[in-house]
Every structure is written in structure tokens, then in C-alpha cells.
């Protein structure tokens, strides 16, 4: 664990690249937050492609009723690994990648507080990913009990489950180290004058996310450790045969799992909160209320976990408590949506790719949030539990929410990262194609769920055939569309395209835009002094 003290070059940023090794050694040994952020982002996109390929297998099997392509066990492994890889391998590392790149530059810090630990946090990820993917090839196959890893299936499964447990441990350790780094960086390395309430909202959302991670990742690690001891060391935490309680695992898992939803979505809120003011050419409406709403969402996320368990036989008082507490989350979330809309109100808006993705996020995430409210109504949820309605709901939150925000963030900051402007036409085609194909893929799942189609089953009744075919076509279309994004990013990384100015967006006002593009290897070694009272204010 090393900590960075400030160097004191007289420049805001300088571009002396002699200070780091080149070739593979640069990437293996780097302690530079920009290098590590880049690795996180490329790693997460690679895992997004792996998880996406698994989604294609799932949708190919569901294209028609009956079993055509894979056997049911493999199908179950695909749904399990798709969930685990997308949540732990794609979305969370992407969020950490954004944090690594942007937080030090946004608060005027020279790097993360613990630069070597930052390197270690990243390099834990590839072994975990290898464990997850190679579990497909061990005797008994990969874990196949769903990403929630519920016993008793997970107590009985083959050694693929052990690899999954080990991978979850490693990913958890990486997340906790990353969170410690982010909290310490934000609390201790802010530039003079950059008070907490002057920070860009992205930093606030990550600060709160990091606290959530510290609180809940160890709980998941504890749960899977108990699972491991049930499997191999004769304990009976969850093993009903020995007097254990499988429902206990659900309580512990969702104590982690529901805050995890906000761990995933809060950084996306932060990104959108940077993009919308920039392209509306107005300051963010209600900055303080956005901060408090974010904190409110985080606190409430700890007391709603059992809404995932309405059908497990909870007492009536518990059902009512969790139902109303879940609905309460709509209040701070509504504050955020209102503030984004108010920010745009009478703004001089333009619709470049980042703004399009932010608006797509706003529209689709609100829909996902609304179906979440439907699921929160306990009597309704009893009908919808484990149907495709729930699959539609969380994909509207995870994909159209988080992923769209991350795409928007990538287009927004790629000029700063690479020094090259992306191709705007390509970006807009990517957006519209993603928006339409996403809805073709996932909107019909609402109908399927309402009609009673269960999730995680490779076969289905004839009555569900038409909408499943539509959904599969949309999924293939959505998957293919993401290659446009890959092409666009590779072009920028290769320097193909117009050179980006230091501040390509007229309305951008945060600290990173004071740096040249691409951002120099070392920045803010001498801290800037911030004097403006309110971030983004005119």
C-alpha cells in the first residue's frame, strides 16, 4: 500500500512521457490512474462482449419453443454466467474505470491516494474473469443456479461452483480496495478550495457508491464463504439437510444485492449529471438536493432487500414494511429525474451523442424505475415473481440505465482521454440503433412476463413464441450495434479523426476541461485552487 504525495511541477499538466516504462511493462506495473482507468474500461468492454455472447446464446435458444441449440444445463450456466459477468465483470469495472480516469482530474488530485493498490485492484480482475469463464470447462460445468447463487442448488453443484465462489471473493476484494482508494482520494486529495459541496456530482455519486461497496461486498463474501464451508467443511448454514436455512442465504444475498443495484446505477447518475448540464448549457439544477437524494437512495437501499423475497413466506408486517420502504425510494429518485428535467428546461440544448445517450438513459431508466414500482406492490409481485416481467424491469435499469449512461460518458470524455474527436455520425447511429433494438429486445418481455412466462427456462409454451422471436431479433440487433461503439472507440484510440481541443464542449465547466487533450500523463502535480462557490454555476 503506497500513498502518493504531491509533486510540485509548476504546470497544471505536463506531457513528459519519459517517466513511465513502455510496452507491456507499462501496463503491468503502472500506477498511473489514467493507465489503470484505461485498462478497467477495455477490460469491462471485453467482458461485456463475453457476457453479451452468452446473452446471444440464450436468445438463440429462446428464438423458438423447444430445445434447439443447447441443453438445459448449459442454458442455465449461460444465464448464470451472463449475470455474473455483466454485473461483476462489465458494469462494475466500467464504473471504476470512469472513476479512475475522472475523479483525480475532477478534484484536482495528481493521482489516486494508493497508486500501487490501484494497480493491484485492477490486476485481480483478469484471474477472476478467467475463473468464471473456465468454470464452463470443468467437470459438472459452470455454476447454473442463477447469478443469485441460491442454495440448495449451489450446495449441490459441481466444482464450477467453487471456481465461481473464488471468483466472487477475488472480485469483492478488488472492489473493496478500489472503494478504499476512491474514498481516500476524495477525502484527502481534493485541491485547495474544492470543498465537498463544490465537487462535480460524479465524484459525489462515486463517494457514496464506495461507502456502499465497503458495507455490502464483505457481506456477499461472507455469504459465499459460508456456502463454501457448507459444500466442503460439513457446516450447515444453508444446507437444510443439516438443519440450515436456505432462505437465510436469500436474506444475506439481497442485503448485498439490493444496494448492489445502486452501486451500479449511482455512478451512471453521476455521469448523466455531468452530461446534461454541459449540453443544456446551464448549471445542474438543485445540486445540493441531488447530493442529498443520492445519499437518501443509498441509505434506503439497506432497508428494502426483502422485496426480492415476497414469495418466501415473510410475515405480513414485514411484507408491508418492505413494500412501503421500496416505494419510498421513488421519492429521491424522482428528485433526481425532476432536477435533470429542470436542468434542461429552457436550456440551449444540443444533441450530440453523449446528450442523446443521457436522454435515452433518462427516458428508459424512468420506465425501468416505474416497472420497479409495479414490482414493489407485493400482491402484484406475487404474480410477477420469476417471470420475464422482472427480466424486462432490471434490464431497463441495468442496460438502458447504466449502460446507456456509460456509453454517453465514453463519448463525452473520449476527446479528453484520446485527444481525438469521435465520429459524430457513427455515435448517433450507435445511439438510435441501440435505442430501437433495446426496446425491440426487452419491451416484449413485459408482455411475456404478464402472460406468465417463467425466466431461466430454455423451453416455453407455444403461446409465447411470437414475442420471443421479436425479442431475440432485437437482442441480436442490439448486440451487433455495439460493434459500432467498439469501432468508434478504436478509431479514437488510434488517433483517427479530428484532433480534440482542450474543451470540445462549450458548456463543460469541470476541472478536467482545463487540461489539454489528450490529458497529459501527469496532471495537477501542483494543485489548482478552486475559488468558485458553486460547481457549474454561472
Amino acid at each position, binding site marked *: 500500500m503506497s500513498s502518493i504525495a504531491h509533486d510540485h511541477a509548476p504546470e497544471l499538466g505536463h506531457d513528459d512521457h519519459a517517466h513511465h516504462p513502455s510496452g507491456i511493462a507499462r501496463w503491468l506495473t503502472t500506477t498511473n490512474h489514467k493507465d489503470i482507468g484505461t485498462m478497467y474500461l477495455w477490460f469491462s468492454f471485453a467482458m461485456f462482449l463475453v457476457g453479451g455472447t452468452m446473452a446471444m446464446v440464450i436468445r438463440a435458444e429462446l428464438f423458438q419453443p423447444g430445445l434447439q441449440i443447447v441443453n438445459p444445463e448449459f442454458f442455465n450456466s449461460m444465464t448464470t454466467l451472463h449475470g455474473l459477468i455483466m454485473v461483476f465483470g462489465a458494469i462494475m469495472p466500467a464504473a471504476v474505470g470512469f472513476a479512475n480516469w475522472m475523479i483525480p482530474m475532477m478534484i484536482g488530485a495528481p493521482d489516486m491516494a*494508493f497508486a500501487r493498490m490501484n494497480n493491484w485492484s485492477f490486476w485481480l480482475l483478469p484471474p477472476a474473469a478467467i475463473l468464471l469463464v473456465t468454470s464452463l470447462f470443468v467437470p459438472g460445468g459452470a455454476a447454473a443456479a442463477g447469478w443469485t447463487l441460491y442454495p440448495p442448488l449451489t450446495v449441490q453443484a459441481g466444482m464450477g461452483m467453487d471456481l465461481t465462489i473464488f471468483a466472487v471473493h477475488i472480485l469483492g476484494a478488488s472492489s473493496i480496495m478500489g472503494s*478504499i482508494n476512491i474514498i481516500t482520494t476524495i477525502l*484527502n486529495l*481534493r485541491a*485547495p478550495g474544492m470543498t465537498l459541496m463544490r465537487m462535480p456530482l460524479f465524484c459525489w455519486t462515486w463517494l457514496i457508491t464506495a461507502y456502499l461497496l465497503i458495507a455490502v461486498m*464483505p457481506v456477499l463474501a461472507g455469504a459465499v464463504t459460508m456456502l463454501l464451508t457448507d459444500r466442503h467443511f460439513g457446516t450447515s448454514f444453508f444446507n437444510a439437510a443439516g438443519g440450515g436455512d436456505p432462505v437465510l442465504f436469500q436474506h444475506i444475498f439481497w442485503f448485498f444485492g439490493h444496494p448492489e443495484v445502486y452501486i451500479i446505477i449511482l455512478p451512471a447518475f453521476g455521469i448523466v449529471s455531468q452530461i446534461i448540464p454541459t449540453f443544456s448549457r446551464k448549471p445542474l439544477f438543485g445540486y445540493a438536493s441531488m447530493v442529498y437524494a443520492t445519499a437518501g437512495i443509498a441509505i434506503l437501499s439497506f432497508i428494502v432487500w426483502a422485496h426480492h423475497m415476497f414469495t418466501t413466506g415473510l410475515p405480513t408486517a414485514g411484507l408491508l414494511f418492505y413494500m412501503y420502504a421500496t416505494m419510498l425510494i421513488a421519492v429521491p429518485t424522482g428528485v433526481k429525474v425532476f432536477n435533470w428535467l429542470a436542468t434542461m428546461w429552457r436550456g440551449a440544448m444540443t444533441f450530440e451523442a453523449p446528450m442523446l445517450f443521457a436522454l435515452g438513459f433518462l427516458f428508459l431508466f424512468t420506465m425501468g424505475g416505474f416497472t420497479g414500482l409495479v414490482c414493489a406492490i407485493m400482491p402484484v409481485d406475487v404474480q410477477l415473481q420469476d417471470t420475464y416481467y422482472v427480466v424486462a424491469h432490471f434490464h431497463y435499469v441495468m442496460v438502458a440505465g447504466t449502460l446507456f449512461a456509460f456509453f454517453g460518458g465514453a463519448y463525452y470524455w473520449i476527446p479528453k482521454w484520446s485527444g481525438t474527436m469521435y465520429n459524430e455520425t457513427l455515435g448517433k447511429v450507435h445511439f438510435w440503433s441501440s435505442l430501437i433494438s433495446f426496446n425491440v429486445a426487452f419491451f416484449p418481455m413485459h408482455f411475456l412476463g404478464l402472460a406468465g412466462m417463467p425466466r431461466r427456462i430454455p423451453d416455453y409454451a407455444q403461446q409465447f413464441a411470437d414475442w420471443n422471436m421479436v425479442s431475440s431479433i432485437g437482442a441480436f440487433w442490439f448486440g451487433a450495434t455495439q460493434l459500432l461503439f467498439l469501432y468508434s472507440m478504436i478509431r479514437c484510440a488510434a488517433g483517427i479523426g479530428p484532433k480534440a481541443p482542450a474543451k470540445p464542449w462549450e458548456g463543460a465547466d469541470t476541472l478536467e476541461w482545463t487540461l489539454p487533450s489528450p490529458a497529459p500523463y501527469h496532471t495537477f502535480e501542483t494543485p489548482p485552487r478552486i475559488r468558485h462557490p458553486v460547481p457549474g*454555476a454561472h
Partner: protein
Amino acid sequence: MRSDVSRWSAAPAADGGQRLRASNRRIAWTLASIAAVFFAGIIATRWAGGGPIATGVMGAAVLLFLVVAIGRNLRRGDERARGSTGQMDASPREAARADPQRHDASDAAGEVPR
């Protein structure tokens, strides 16, 4: 839409750097210990079985954090009473800022628009 950013120059205070590193480590260990309590606590609670153990684990952890925090505060109070500077209360970053060797060079460096 602009805020004023000015540059600093001048050498760092080695003392300020050390204090910053110490503060970084303190935050890191505090957060790591919270994570450890949650990890070990959930297992211990289920191992020993039930609510009273859970309350005991959390209570003991909170008590331990309080003892450490109060102990540190008392020690700092003693140091202040022995004539240390008022900078003991300042955050590491503030202390570094207050170092007389550092000066605000905004006039020379000019304003950098945001």
C-alpha cells in the same frame, strides 16, 4: 459559466506530505476494518446463531471504534497541551496548505477558466 482556478507553485512541506500519507493510511485502515467487521461478523453471527450474537458483534465493533477514536483524540489533546501547534486540528491537506513555504501564485500564473 466559469470558476476561477489559479495555480500554486513552490515546494511542498515534507511534513505536510508525511501527514497526508498518514491520514491516507488511517482512512484506509478504518475502512478496511469496517469491511472486516462485516465479513467476519456475518459469519460469526450465523455460526454462533442468532440475533444476540449479531448485536454483540456489532456492539463490540462500534465500542472498539469508539475507544480507538476517543483514545486518539485524548492523545492529540495531550500533545496540544504540551505545546504543539494548532495545526494538529487541521486536516493533512489544510496543514500542507498552511505551510509558509507555499504561496498562492495566482497573480503570476493568471486565471485558468473552467
